[in-house]
């Protein structure tokens, strides 16, 4: 991989961030509904002078280009302003919420790989059998299911009917572990707080399963077709003719090569999970960035929406950069 490619992609990241920031800024300013009016309510005691004072305090009385320049300047220095509704620094709020979104995305990816890869391998090895057809049928259902509905149905089964798992939130209030990384499962493990770990995992299970299932279906499809392609190649025939154990051929040779497209799928999945967190976090009242974005858009909280959306978008674009780099590291034939 050339340095020029890396520099080019990093510059692209900066430009994309700028365009995203500009888009978010413009769209929010064009959106009907004034945030200060919403904050002050319809109380008769509130005078125009109060509203003007508030607008001045929040910097909303400044010209648009000055507000935008201040926002972009804040992005560079990490100062994203103050939430209009919660009246707290935006960067602090994002810092609090980001680990919850990352924890859910990582868990969902794990779920999707744990389900998707073996299922795809089995379907490929038993191509056109009844098992293959059942797997592909379930796969289709997985791809067609709205994730929010699946989440609610899982809540109905595991929380309401069986009472096995909690349906909302990240952890019981009295079990929150000492913050090290912000990822409750990891923090509980690092501080060896087993009740907290158990509780955090129980809260994480349903959201991760919901978010991971659709991707498990995609992964199973890709692994299946990729395996079928690899299994027909000469080096696999050579492995058979050498008399290698079937397990070694499938796992050591075929699967290893068939998993290369997983980097792209994994990258796409991570990006979509961040974007899709808006839905899953709403279903399970998961206190992450997605939920924060929905609440801040509804409350016309300019500073918070801008900060949260730009952060999510930058993560999204950065993941695609990491995927490109990872691809060329794993497959030496790919040169940038």
């Amino acid at each position: 991989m050339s340095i020029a490619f890396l520099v080019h992609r990093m510059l692209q990241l900066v430009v994309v961030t700028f365009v995203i920031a500009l888009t978010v800024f413009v769209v929010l300013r064009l959106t009907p509904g004034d945030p200060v009016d919403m904050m002050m309510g319809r109380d008769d005691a509130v005078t125009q002078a109060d509203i003007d004072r508030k607008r001045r305090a929040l910097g909303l009385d400044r010209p648009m280009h000055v507000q935008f320049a201040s926002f972009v300047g804040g992005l560079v220095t990490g100062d994203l302003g103050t939430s209009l509704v919660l009246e707290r620094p935006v960067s602090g709020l994002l810092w609090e919420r980001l680990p919850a979104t990352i924890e859910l995305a990582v868990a969902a990816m794990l779920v999707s790989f744990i389900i998707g890869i073996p299922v795809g391998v089995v379907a490929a090895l038993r191509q056109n059998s009844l098992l293959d057809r059942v797997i592909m049928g379930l796969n289709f259902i997985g791809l067609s299911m709205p994730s929010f509905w699946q989440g609610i149905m899982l809540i109905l089964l595991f929380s309401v009917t069986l009472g096995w798992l909690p349906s909302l939130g990240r952890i019981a209030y009295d079990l929150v572990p000492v913050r090290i990384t912000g990822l409750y499962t990891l923090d509980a493990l690092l501080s060896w707080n087993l009740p907290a770990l158990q509780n955090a995992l129980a809260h994480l299970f349903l959201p991760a399963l919901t978010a991971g299932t659709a991707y498990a279906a995609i992964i199973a499809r890709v692994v299946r077709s990729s395996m079928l392609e690899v299994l027909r190649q000469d080096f696999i025939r050579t492995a058979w003719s050498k008399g290698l154990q079937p397990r070694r051929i499938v796992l050591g040779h075929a699967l290893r090569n068939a998993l290369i497209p997983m980097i792209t799928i994994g990258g796409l999945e991570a990006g979509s999970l961040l974007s899709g967190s808006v839905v899953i976090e709403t279903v399970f009242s998961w206190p992450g960035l997605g939920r924060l974005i929905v609440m801040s858009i509804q409350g016309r909280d300019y500073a918070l929406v801008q900060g949260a959306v730009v952060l999510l978008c930058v993560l999204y674009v950065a993941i695609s950069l990491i995927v490109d780099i990872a691809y060329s590291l794993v497959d030496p034939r790919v040169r940038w």
Partner: protein
Amino acid sequence: MVDGTAIAARVARRAPGRRSSLRRLLGYPTSVFGLLVLLFFVVLAVFAPLLAPFDPNAGNLLRRLRPPMWLDGGLSAHLIGTDQLGRDLLSQMIFGARVSLSVGVGVVLLSGLIGGGLGLVAGYLRGRIDTVLSRLADWTLAFPFLILAILLMGLLGPGVANLVLVLSITGWPHFFRLMRGEVLVEREKAYVEAARALGAHRVSIMLRHVARNVFHTFLVVATVRLGLAVLSEAGLSYLGFGVPPGVPAWGSMVSIGQDYVETAWWLSAAPGLAILLLVLSVNLVGEGLRDAFDPRMRP
């Protein structure tokens, strides 16, 4: 003088057996099932006022939260029960099909027209226009789609037309990329060269020859995007950024039902199942179309 355009059009018309492709499609049982289910939903949507047993917005608080008729407490008049305001769930579901299908079809038509048209132009003309359009598509795709859709819905406000517009703004690059790729291949083929040599105008070549030969790919992408558009509309309606309150939409019905999941599970179960069935049927048809047009793709 020989009309080059007419000759090329005749050659293009004969290109890979379209009729036999359709016959192949009807030969797949799963695709036929998908087509029938899709047709069922289309009939529901079109004839909703005739088929719905009640006005979907007429509530009767004395009959609120009644379960489906086969469960204890169910009423024969309300086949799958009533909601928290005593409105007939079946009638709401039937009218909900209108929103899902009209948004889905509207998005496919609009984003297909924009993305497909621009893809055709960019792929055929190449050069600066291709660079500009490709970059624009890349920018749009770099934005997490759902976040962009929520932001734009916040700006435009709820409504079916706005949903179509927003989902088309976020969806056109998918059509664009695919059509551009297909057209780049087609423009190098002999029939295009022949048409060009015979003096056909480039607009005529694009529309009468190239567009015709990439139409099957367009159709396959359109079905895939239709399913995704229905899911996206449902997702936005679930989050409260879809249709205005009072308009029955499956996504917002699931959202309301979630508040009653412990006592009235049917409120969220039924509309979600309808979304699943509709998207599944569209995907089955799409899969069948893909296999029918290119049997080598059959897994």
